[in-house]
């Protein structure tokens, strides 16, 4: 068996950083992730709010969403390849399917947990339609939605790596793939390390900062 040494991994990392492969790969991966994740939010949040507010959708759509959520996202890849071929679109499809459902489920739950008093107050004040959705339901559910977005992000990141390993088109997943083909264990481990680093950084720095701000504003920080 092949075991990398820490020095070997570090050297490989520095090497990839120097020749730009790391940054190119990271850039490509993040761009895709950004697109797919944004699409998941734009579709998942309204879907979740909708399912929470429309009893018919709750009966018809919620079981489907919950069922599909049990499917590991990489299982969408064969279908995606049949539909879109070995293309960018296939990767995006897998990323979206990986995170959209988690976001929708968390959003639905968060909307349901909004204080009923606030909804009644909105009703007596005559807040309806778009103003109710954008002004009360969305901000009211935001702390819960953020939890879903965090989960969705980690799902999206995993789905992306899985897809990039198979659909070769640049990105960190491809670097991992090449490392394997060249039997370069140090490179494989160095890329794995980078993938973890990106995941942890976004979670701890970006999401933590947003969450802290929202919780403080919503007056939740002291109570939990």
């Amino acid at each position, binding site marked *: 068996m092949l075991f990398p040494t820490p020095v070997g991994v570090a050297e490989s990392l520095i090497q990839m950083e120097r020749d730009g492969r790391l940054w190119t790969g990271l850039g490509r991966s993040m761009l895709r992730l950004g697109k797919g994740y944004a699409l998941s939010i734009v579709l998942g949040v309204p879907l979740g709010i909708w399912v929470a507010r429309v009893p018919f959708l709750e009966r018809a759509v919620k079981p489907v969403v919950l069922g599909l959520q049990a499917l590991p996202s990489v299982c969408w890849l064969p279908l995606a390849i049949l539909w879109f071929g070995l293309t960018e679109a296939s990767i995006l499809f897998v990323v979206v399917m990986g995170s959209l459902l988690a976001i929708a489920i968390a959003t639905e739950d968060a909307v349901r947990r909004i204080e009923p008093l*606030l909804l009644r107050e909105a009703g007596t*004040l*005559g*807040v*309806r339609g778009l*103003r109710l959705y954008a002004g009360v339901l969305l*901000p*009211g559910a935001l702390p819960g939605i953020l939890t879903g977005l965090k989960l969705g992000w980690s799902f999206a990141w995993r789905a992306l790596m899985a897809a990039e390993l198979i659909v070769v088109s640049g990105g960190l997943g491809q670097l991992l793939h090449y490392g394997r083909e060249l039997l370069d264990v140090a490179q494989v481990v160095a890329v794995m390390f980078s993938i973890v680093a990106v995941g942890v950084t976004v979670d701890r720095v970006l999401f933590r900062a947003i969450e802290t701000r929202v919780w403080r*504003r919503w007056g939740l920080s002291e109570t939990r």
Partner: protein
Amino acid sequence: MATLLPTRLWARLVPRWTLEPSRSKPGEAKIAVREVEHRYENKVEALRNISLDVHSGEFVCLLGPSGCGKSTLLLALAGALPPTCGRITIDGKPVKGPDPSRLLMFQDPALFPWMTVRQNLVFALRSKVRSRPRREETAARYVKRVHLDGFEGALPHQLSGGMRMRASLARALSMDPSVLLMDEPFGALDAQTKGQMQQLLQQVWVETRKTVVFVTHDVREALVLGDRVVVMAARPGRILKDFEVRLPRPRDPDDEAIVQYSRQIREALRSAEAPKGHAKDASAVPASGLSAGAAHPVGTGG
């Protein structure tokens, strides 16, 4: 000592304050409740044969023990609960469903926690006032009216319970509802804050002359705030008495007249609760020796 004096002389020495039944007023009532009955699904008769007129600009307090149907009646007025029987009209129109022209306030200030005080008002005003500068201007005016100036930018969780209630009151008033319905709004506040809120509400009401229906189980609160005190009893929920409170404002809960009035109202409530056979005796022959006041019962009604 007091019992030794002839009653008439006693009456002349100590001014006696007696509440009088409300007189019917000329003109059409703003809120007209006619023979309203309500039964919940569990067969509880929450309201029986309720008829009530509230005139424009009146401050009416619904007073009674817990479970006498005060909240049920208020919800019916708000249109949040259709009564099983009877008719309710506001400005001549039957009440059907909730409407921002009849605002309902509860113990919970129900402010949107992610909005500042100012934003809470401005957001509510968006369904009423088109122009943005006018909304801001109206919000600022009402924030000032409840003495919250300086706290426009504060979030609800940064305020005390009393301040939150004031913000909620400002929001309700800024919507300029034709009727303001309040269900024990100060019930969760400490005694001192509650007193301050009562003074503030009186002051604001004198300035705005809104039509208010205010539910409470606190006798003094009803007397401090109301032009009329409608006394209710439970099982079944019904109206016992409808008193008129003719005292100048601002009123003080420790005012001698209010102390005596509240004794009279407690008496009425007690006799309603007493077993049927004893009810008459209880009001005619008060238990002597309880207190000087009880030895000289204040007559019920005119």
